């Protein structure tokens, strides 16, 4: 790209291609969600079927495109039909057959196939609603980082340019000094979306202030937090945006080289990034003398290989350097001594994804959203016991209640909300009493949870909080790098205590020891992994102490999860003596003759639950 003018020409041309109304050829744009989730659910055959049918039917005015994550992942595969002047139609749970039907009825004849639309398919959505945009799930959202996801074709640089892509980079390179760029980012109040919430502008400023012959920009796309996939969505749905943002960061901080460290489990993201980088190199949006400004920037991709700790910034850099991903002590901080020993700015994908918009629309626009200390929006990955699992981007400060009940559609099967876990293995849980606090960095920290990367797992009354804590601990024990004593041995011992408790062997002294060692690990560990590993334990202990006590004192798991503490019983009044349970029991623990009340021998029972599922008369209960 030699100049802004050149960019504008491409943009205008691409816009016409996307919208195309000028010459009355009413282009119909059909997009298929082709992010991992969509592909997993079978979007590829849908895309093929659509293409096939469109060409068979000779629909010259229909453009079938792939796109990234549309957000309602559980209703994949998703097909959207966008026609000028008409309302968008969202088809969900599409398969090849349905796709062909949609092609002939809707694309050819113009009749919406309502039974396959959101409204027609999803119980919780009003029948009349055809577009996902009109669902509660969407209307509450405010899309900044995800604005192009599910809209543009992530493999087309022209489509990115059509939605003002690279305009922010052009603006920076042609009319802003590096320190002005840093100032804008500072003024926007943007905080790191990777977990820590450190102000991005400050970080950029630190690196910019350090003189060095070489500096780097690193994008943390390791997204190791189980249950979070917002970074993946950006990488898969809007890869050019990340490239643009990193280049801007390079310009602002004085770096001429960047690395994107992507977790290996994201092959689709890697493929799209590779393609995007190649194209940017070709179009001189990377490389030497970008926009004729003399600024040079080059970008590389490095793949992780399955280590959660590599999301920690120093471990990530050790890993890029080609080593075991063990964290290094800080200070020195990356802005002083980072990748290959050089000053480095490291940010998360979602953090970067906000940058171009901030440059184009201004710091005030951005800081106009959110709360006093947390500006802008945050993407959450809703999961667990919730109707609408998927990705939502909402302004900071929306309450958990709105998020769960309105956007998330509430909890399935009429169960009761118990808690939401945020921040994954480093985070904590938010119990029902805090459903109404506005979610932002500081509020979450204050109640012992944390924003983390934005994973939001909803739990209902059937989830045992001790078991959940143990689950996260098992994760950290597995993922500890093993370098420092508190984490290598401490988390293991903590896990063992939790195991003891869920097995029914815990004592009150164990609870004290558990708390003590939690605080010890937090204080003494070398890196953030260990420092935050006890959080799930501490926060569940704080909010659900009674559950812990029940396990320890009454040897009872109130939610009926911890196998060792369960027992199955037959209620004599309800049992009809049908013998079904006895026949299904794998260990012959049930005795009784036909037509007579049956009985479970608790000593023999292995708690598999098979009998309970089998009994037609609800005579078997779990205690």
């Amino acid at each position, binding site marked *: 790209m030699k100049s802004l003018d050149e960019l504008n020409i491409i943009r205008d041309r691409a816009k016409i291609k996307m919208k195309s109304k000028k010459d009355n050829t009413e282009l119909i744009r059909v997009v298929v969600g082709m992010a991992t989730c969509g592909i*997993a659910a079978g979007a590829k055959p849908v895309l093929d079927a659509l293409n096939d049918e469109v060409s068979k039917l000779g629909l010259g005015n229909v453009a079938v495109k792939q796109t990234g994550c549309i957000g309602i992942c559980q209703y994949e595969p998703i097909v959207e039909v966008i026609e000028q002047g008409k309302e968008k139609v969202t088809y969900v749970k599409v398969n090849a057959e349905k796709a062909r039907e949609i092609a002939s009825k809707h694309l050819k004849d113009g009749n919406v196939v309502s039974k396959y639309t959101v409204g027609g398919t999803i119980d919780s959505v009003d029948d009349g609603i055809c577009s996902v945009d009109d669902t509660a799930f969407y209307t509450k959202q405010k899309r900044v980082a995800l604005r192009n996801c599910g809209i543009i074709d992530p493999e087309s640089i022209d489509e990115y340019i059509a939605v003002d892509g690279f305009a922010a980079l052009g603006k920076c390179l042609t009319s802003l000094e590096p320190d002005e760029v840093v100032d804008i980012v500072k003024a926007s109040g943007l905080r790191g979306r990777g977990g820590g919430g450190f102000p991005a502008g400050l970080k950029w400023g630190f690196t910019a202030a350090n003189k060095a012959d070489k500096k780097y920009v690193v994008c943390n796309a390791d997204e190791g937090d*189980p*249950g979070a*996939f917002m970074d993946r969505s950006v990488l898969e749905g809007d890869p050019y945006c990340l490239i643009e943002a990193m280049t801007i960061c390079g310009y602002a901080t004085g770096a001429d080289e960047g690395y994107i460290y992507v977790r290996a489990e994201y092959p689709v993201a890697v493929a799209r990034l590779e393609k995007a980088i190649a194209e940017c190199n070709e179009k001189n949006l990377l490389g030497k003398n970008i926009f004729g400004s003399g600024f040079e920037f080059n970008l590389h991709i490095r793949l992780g*290989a399955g280590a959660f700790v590599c999301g920690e910034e120093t471990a990530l850099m050790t890993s890029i350097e080609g*080593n075991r*991903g063990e964290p290094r002590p800080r200070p020195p901080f990356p802005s002083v001594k980072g990748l290959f020993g050089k000053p480095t700015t490291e940010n998360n994908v979602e953090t970067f994804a906000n940058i171009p918009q901030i440059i184009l629309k201004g710091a005030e626009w951005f800081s106009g959203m959110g709360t006093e200390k947390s500006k802008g929006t945050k993407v959450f990955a809703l*999961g667990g016991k919730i109707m609408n699992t998927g990705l939502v981007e909402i302004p900071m400060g929306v309450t958990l209640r709105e998020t769960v009940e309105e956007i998330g559609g509430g909890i399935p099967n009429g169960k009761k909300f118990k808690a939401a876990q945020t921040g994954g293995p480093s985070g904590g849980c938010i119990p029902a009493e805090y459903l109404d606090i506005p979610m932002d960095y500081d509020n979450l920290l204050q109640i012992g949870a944390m924003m983390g990367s934005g994973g939001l797992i909803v739990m209902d009354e059937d989830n045992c909080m001790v078991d959940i804590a143990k689950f996260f601990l098992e994760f950290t024990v597995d993922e500890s*790098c093993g370098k420092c004593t508190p984490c290598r041995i401490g988390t293991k011992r903590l896990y063992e205590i939790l195991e003891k408790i869920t097995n029914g062997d815990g004592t009150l002294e164990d609870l004290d020891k558990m708390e003590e060692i939690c605080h010890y690990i937090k204080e003494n560990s070398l890196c953030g992994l260990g420092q935050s590993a006890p959080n799930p334990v501490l926060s569940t202990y704080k909010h659900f102490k009674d559950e812990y006590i029940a396990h320890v004192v009454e040897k009872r798991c109130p939610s009926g999860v911890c196998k060792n503490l369960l027992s199955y019983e037959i209620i004599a009044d309800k049992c009809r003596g049908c013998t079904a349970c006895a026949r299904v029991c794998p260990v012959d623990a049930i005795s009784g003759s036909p037509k007579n009340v049956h009985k479970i021998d608790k000593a023999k029972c292995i708690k598999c639950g098979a009998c309970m599922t089998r009994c037609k008369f609800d005579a078997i209960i779990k205690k």
Partner: protein
Amino acid sequence: MKKRISTLQFEGTERQARQLGNIIEGCKKDKSMLMYVMQQAQLIYGYLPYEVQVMIAEGMDVPLEKVYGISTFYSQFTLSPKGKNNISVCLGTACYVKGSKQVLDKVCEVLGINPGECTSDRLFSIEECRCIGACGLAPVIMINDEVYGNLAPGDVEGIIDKYRNKN
């Protein structure tokens, strides 16, 4: 978990050695490419046995222990071959909450092996994995490239049989 070192005979071909050689040739100037080379080697050979790690250490001019240390640090690297059909069971939060542990237990029971192992006929191997980004379909397992969602333990046997019969 400690990495299992396979005792199976190494069966690398000339052609594979050539492929790996070419990759090393392109990377050997930059030691930070070591992990990339190992990833490529695993794509070529399916796993990273002694013979392959020696080739990498020699080619990249790094100590063998460094290669081995890396190969046992990252969970993606494996020291034993994968079965023809590799079954990964997601134990990510969403899947766990919806019962993927029971699914895993069932898979192990049906195949008679543990996670990280390969059946003696080399037909199946099992691994545990973290979120594969299909949480909406939880609990999820992935066999080779195919994803099966919304599973109950009872579904496992049938799915495995499908693959058994294919081969």
